[in-house]
């Protein structure tokens, strides 16, 4: 019994490690690049965005699993999958937008267009879709969604730290702004390749 428990814990740990590091959505799947570049100029904003995305991603993967299992599959409505998921995500984003507007108007301003754009963030939809495709159990899906969100948050905050330092650097004319940020993101992605093979998933 205990051995089984440990096996399960190990399994869940692997799911998290895989989602955070090995199959990082931004750096190895190249999903969610838009907010990754858009809201990473300051660490504070990046942290706020991270929490918003974590909220949406975890709940979206949970809700999508429920919808998939209890509505789409029983009624054979898989052709409605995308539209359902988008609906879930859009509602969650609306909710978090109201929440942030109420609690932190400055963060609301700083996130600007990127907050509603979480709706069309390919990472969020990607997580939901990949999750149900893999056909995992409920807890595994939730963890996977959460792990992917943590991975997104991790690289977003690290990247924001790097960009804050970059803001002081005399970057050559042609590379100023987005180009050097992309080069940096590329280097990060190279570094994350070191994790490949860490978890066979």
């Amino acid at each position: 019994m205990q051995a089984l428990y440990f096996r399960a814990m190990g399994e869940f740990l692997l799911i998290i490690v895989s989602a955070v590091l090995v199959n990082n959505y931004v750096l190895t799947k190249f999903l969610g690049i838009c907010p990754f570049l858009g809201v990473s100029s300051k660490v504070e904003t990046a942290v706020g965005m991270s929490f918003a995305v974590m909220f949406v991603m975890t709940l979206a993967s949970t809700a999508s699993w429920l919808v998939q299992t209890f509505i789409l599959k029983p009624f054979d409505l898989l052709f409605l999958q995308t539209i359902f998921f988008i609906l879930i995500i859009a509602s969650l984003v609306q909710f978090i937008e109201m929440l942030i507007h109420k609690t932190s108007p400055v963060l609301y301003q700083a996130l600007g267009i990127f907050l509603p754009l979480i709706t069309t963030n390919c990472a969020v939809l990607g997580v939901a879709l990949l999750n149900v495709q893999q056909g995992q159990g409920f807890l595994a899906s939730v963890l996977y969604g959460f792990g992917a969100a943590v991975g997104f948050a991790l690289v977003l905050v690290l990247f924001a730290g790097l960009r804050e330092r970059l803001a002081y650097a005399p970057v050559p004319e042609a590379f100023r702004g987005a180009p050097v940020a992309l080069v940096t993101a590329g280097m990060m992605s190279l570094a994350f390749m070191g994790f490949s093979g860490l978890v066979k998933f």
Partner: protein
Amino acid sequence: MHILIAIASLGGFALMAGLLLSLAQKKFRVEGDPMVEKIDAVLPQTQCGQCGYPGCKPYAEAVARGEADINHCVPGGERTMHQLADLMGVEPKPLEEEPTAPMVAFIREDECIGCTLCIKACPVDAIVGAPKQYHTVIADYCTGCTLCIEPCPVDCIDMLLKPELIEHWAWPLPETERARIGRERKENHARAA
């Protein structure tokens, strides 16, 4: 039949989400615009109207509504513009006008006829005087907005440079190549954006 289930489930789901959202909307209603206060706090409060609005607060409201750009505050200069850019989450923009050195108004008292027009114009009540008496500017309170110049019928108000005090002197940046490059980069950045 199949299509009916599809429509019903999708519709039902959407209805549920809509209900939840409308509840949330009630709970998280935002009164007024909290940004106005924050924007007003970084404005220099000269009330000079150089931004095209009748004072600092109206400009703050216009910026919060997104009607006014962030680069119209002349006395606030680059710093205020950067603070506004930070608050609004937009890229810094070059200033409309370069800020001038800080000034104070000065009334040539022997020419003053005591009409009190300048007193009425002063947005911070920094001019004292009574009808038919000489008026004078309290230099410590004058914001240098120049709003008193126009109404004066005898043109007896001058704008003088604020005297430079040794206590208020601040070290300049070092005159090194690196500091200069940094400064230029920042200016170029502001201009390019």
